[in-house]
């Protein structure tokens, strides 16, 4: 366990890692990193390192889970045993099962599930290193994996948390801020549709603080969306260049 810091926000209004209250951690995204998956993405969001892969649309196993009028989206969020300070048992915890569900529900509004009846799409998320905000970074990466797999989507999904540390509402909490802070509000949006697809909260916020946190998180999501688009473009510019060389 790391020591409890004295002050989460210093006199200049800067945070533990020197960020301003409304500043994101550095984000790096790469699309198409796994050759065996139909679509994949790797994200580094601060110290978070996460891989996401999408498989499908494909035949579902077990078969009785198929639906006659739509595809079934399944999602597994999993943390590597070495991803956190104290080794995490590789067996799925209750937290991971809940997060798998909310991540699936955050992505599903963006997918045209009715285009592929009687099929399934599986999303696998592996958190290789965790530093607060893994569910949001996972959604950001998984949406790109779905897009990379060529699954028709209404929009991408970008996610980011806001929260409260001390008396300040801040964007994108890292691990220590999440643990010591007084509230955490993870949000996922479809940026072009102005639609919130994931919203959770723990901690105590007044109505006004909550409103501010949601606004801040949405602003953060929009910035992440810009990075997502760049990563997708980079991937397909590379594919295009390869093809040109072959010709």
């Amino acid at each position, binding site marked *: *366990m790391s020591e409890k810091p004295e002050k989460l926000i210093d006199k200049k209004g800067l945070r533990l890692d020197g960020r301003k209250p409304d500043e994101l951690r550095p984000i790096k995204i790469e699309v198409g990193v796994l050759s065996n998956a139909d679509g994949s993405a790797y994200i580094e969001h601060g110290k978070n390192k996460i891989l996401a892969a999408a498989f499908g649309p494909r035949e579902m196993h077990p078969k009785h889970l198929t639906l006659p009028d739509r595809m079934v989206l399944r999602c597994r969020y999993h943390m590597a045993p070495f991803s956190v300070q104290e080794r995490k048992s590789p067996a799925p915890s*209750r*937290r991971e*099962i*809940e997060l*798998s*569900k*909310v991540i699936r*529900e955050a992505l*599903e*509004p963006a997918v045209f599930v009715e285009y592929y009846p009687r099929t399934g799409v599986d999303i696998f998320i592996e958190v290789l290193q965790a530093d607060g905000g893994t569910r949001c970074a996972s959604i950001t990466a998984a949406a790109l994996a779905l897009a990379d797999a060529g699954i028709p989507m209404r929009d991408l999904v970008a996610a980011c948390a806001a929260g409260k540390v001390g008396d300040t509402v801040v964007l994108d909490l890292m691990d220590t801020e999440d643990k010591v802070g007084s509230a955490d*509000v993870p949000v996922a949006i*479809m940026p072009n*549709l*102005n*639609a*919130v*697809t*994931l*919203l*959770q*909260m*723990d*901690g*105590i*916020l*007044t*109505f006004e603080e*909550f*409103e501010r946190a*949601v*606004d801040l998180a*949405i602003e953060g999501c929009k910035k992440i969306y810009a990075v997502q688009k760049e990563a997708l473009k980079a991937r397909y510019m590379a594919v295009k260049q390869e093809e040109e060389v072959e010709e």
Partner: protein
Amino acid sequence: MSSLITRVRLKQIENLIEKGKRLDGRGLGDYREIKIEQGIIEKAEGSARVLLGKTEVLVGVKIETGEPFPDTPNEGVLTVNAELVPLASPSFEAGPPDENSIELARVVDRGIRESKAIDAEKLVIEPGKKVFVVFVDIYVLNHDGNLIDAAALAAVAALRNTKMPNYEIENGEVKIKQGYTQLPMRAYPITVTLGKINGKLIVDPWLEEEEAIDSRISLAINDEGNICAIQKGGVGYFTPQQILEAARIAKEKATALRKKLDW
């Protein structure tokens, strides 16, 4: 948790809500009738049964001694578990908890934990070594929609009804003495769930409405009217305006319910 609902029924629900009405005659912002009974399981340290319309949830609280978590040596432990008992609905199956029951337990847990409802520091017997562990077991007995609100209400009602065993320490051993004291509580969170159908928000969706809504949002509201936990569920979305509207309605409903229950 869905079974199939006919398109005719779906259309009927949607048309009514468009006019501000609901199948069971309620307005969009009305709860079903709420009945709470406390102390119905004598062997449990605390218990409560909540009827929310036909939804029925029983919560039993058991208290045992155990070790605190290493990062909170000066606090007792809260554990919330939910069982979707197969006799409560044709859609429930026996076996290990599925994602629905885990989500239900964790949403109720978050409401209690984040509002600091239990005065956990008073549950310490020996710091870092021995504390009281509060087990909150949610038993869904009949599923007619909105399990989250019913379970959250039953859990807090059961905790309000919970008696802790008196004890003394003899040669480093905990000896249970005669008599009981009330479980120390600091807050009584109330959770309000809203569903979204065709862009309209409805309070306390019942089973058929749950099949029709594309998403739901649950907000736990503490004694001061602040928000202490939120969970969005379902495969749809909310606009930012709808979220703020839901938060406003939840606060209003929780305040009214708190007054009615005299919590």
